[in-house]
């Protein structure tokens, strides 16, 4: 699974990566992945799986998915 961590979400993960490739044996809840990576759910404003917006609480992700997580953004 290809995981993109947008903007400051990288900051929470060791080495601060913008992209992680994660192998999943079985589909898991997106929230489980978020917890595993110790990402703060309150800072995740946008979750998308394969180009579709999903709910952080309900979505399942599988190996081969492209997952994007972004924090709230504004200004610029």
């Amino acid at each position, binding site marked *: 699974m290809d995981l993109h961590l947008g903007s400051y979400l990288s900051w929470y993960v060791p080495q601060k990566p913008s992209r992680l490739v994660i192998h999943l044996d079985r589909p898991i809840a997106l929230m489980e992945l978020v917890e595993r990576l110790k990402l703060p*759910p*309150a*800072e995740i404003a946008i979750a998308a799986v394969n*180009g579709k917006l999903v709910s952080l609480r309900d979505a399942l992700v599988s190996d081969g998915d492209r997952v994007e997580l*972004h924090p709230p953004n504004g200004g610029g």
Partner: protein
Amino acid sequence: MAYGINGRILRVDLTQASVNTEFFDDNLYRLYPGGKALAGYLLLRELPPGTDALAPENLLVIANGLLTGAPISASTRFTVAARSPLTGAYGESEAGGFWGPELKMAGYEAIVVSGRAKQPVYISINDDKVELRDARELWGREPEEVQAAIRHELGDKRIRVLQIGIGGENLVRYAALTNELRHFNGRTGMGAVMGSKNLKAIAVRGTGRYLDSAHDAKPIVDLGRALGKRVKEHPQAWDLQVKGTPALVGAFNAAGILPTRNFRQGVFEGADNLKWEAYEKELLTARGTCYACAVRCKREVKVDDRYQVSDAYGGPEYETVEGFGGYCGVGDLQAVAKANELCNRYTLDTISTSVTIAFAMECFEHGLIGLKETDGLDLRFGNAAAMLQAVDLIARREGIGNLLAEGSKRAAEVIGGGAHLFAMQVKGQELPMHDPRGKVSVGLGYAIGEHGADHLYSIHDTLVANPDSIGFKGASPLGVEALPAQQLGSAKARNYAILENWCSFGQVVGLCYFGPAPRSFTQIEEVLTAVRAATGWAMTLADLLQIGERATNLTRAFNVRNGFSRKEDTLPERLFQPLENGPMAGTLISKPEFERTMDELYRLKGWDSKTTVPTRDRLRDLDIEWVADLLGV
């Protein structure tokens, strides 16, 4: 003097070639402590309604804020204001960089420029020594040469130069000003006002220190140190430094609200080529900053590949990446960087330039203009070469560029045949790269903003939507509620009004949008500490919000006197129509709901919902009853 460095205003009359210094009374400064407040005050009192924006009678006000140049991060900004040649309304634009702080060191809060010089001049300020100097040799030359020539002529490399390029000289209605070649007062055409006055540049050198005139220097020094240390441990500040504003491309594309092809779409198929990962690989050479700012969010770039992009003019920010990127259908970051370099060289606002070009592209694709009008330029979405040529033509006012230099609203009136539906503008100013269909407060700000569509007029809904987020917690002392980003209604109007006052306060005192809450790099309590330490005034948060609200009322009064009313406080029709693609396809803003929210907003502001004239009661509450007399209410 118990505030800033000094309470002086410099008056420069270019027609008379005279220079005078005026002292600003402490009581007045409390009400109008710089930036938008001071500019609004001066323009409202001194500029007769109906003055032609490009006539010598227009006043160009350049104003620092109370905190501009304080040695703390994100406290660098100054305002340039005048009647706008783009909108006919109050025009203003802030910039960071180094120029504002240098003016403060020279001992001035503001410069008011009136009249028109007989031939090109520049103003040289070296502490108390102010003179007008011949700029005939500099007219028509590029900013990089001009800056070097002025420093050479005056024999000081540390001189800071604020100037216009050919866009300003040629009176492009959205021409910008630049300082240090890479910081811009981009919006509302202040560069054209400067050009109309035959004023090429203002060179400043100051040897004072901000802290010398502060009421109590220590809390400011302590805060500066604390913020310097905080960057690495603050996620948003770290993000701004490492990735910078271009990181927004990925976020908005995923969310389906990346303004694409003139706000028709929310997802751009070429977005991967514009994201910050591509930026880092293809453009980035270094990170830059503004005066005393540890955030270092600015980008330095250089390209020597498909395009040649000079390293002299700084790198594109998000607005520019997307404006010349997906918004014009161009998925080539090097072409985008080239467009940015050209705009910076010519001093054109990148937002209005890109949005006006996209407008022309849509007109071209609909056959409203053809190859005859464009002199053979195939101005279709996605044609990077044509886009770059259009930038050049606009700056020189040649061919189709002469029409597009008028801005999309005026160009649409000339083209006719429904072209106005493609002009994405409010009050004549083009929309920035934020789609209100995904965050409605941005739309309220576009509509009600005194200087036309502006994304920094208030806080974007997303930053305060989640009660557990850093953004919301940082902003909570303001008394806002956590509300969904797409929700309109009275609670949203209330949030908007509070946050607009907070943003307006930042623009008055010279804070950068990336510092204070809800960005929360600088906490609200710390902003209060800085204001109190600088001035000795016992101010509360409510006082700061009132400073912001007072400034907005001054600029609204200016607009009312220039014939503006509710009908100009609106959005382009397209935003009331559905997005065409991506995860937000079908999403629109409901017009009746939007109008109801606007009604509530006028009520909260104490403005008449039809005329938008502020009531005497509200003006009295804001200690500016003289404005009610002026408006006859």
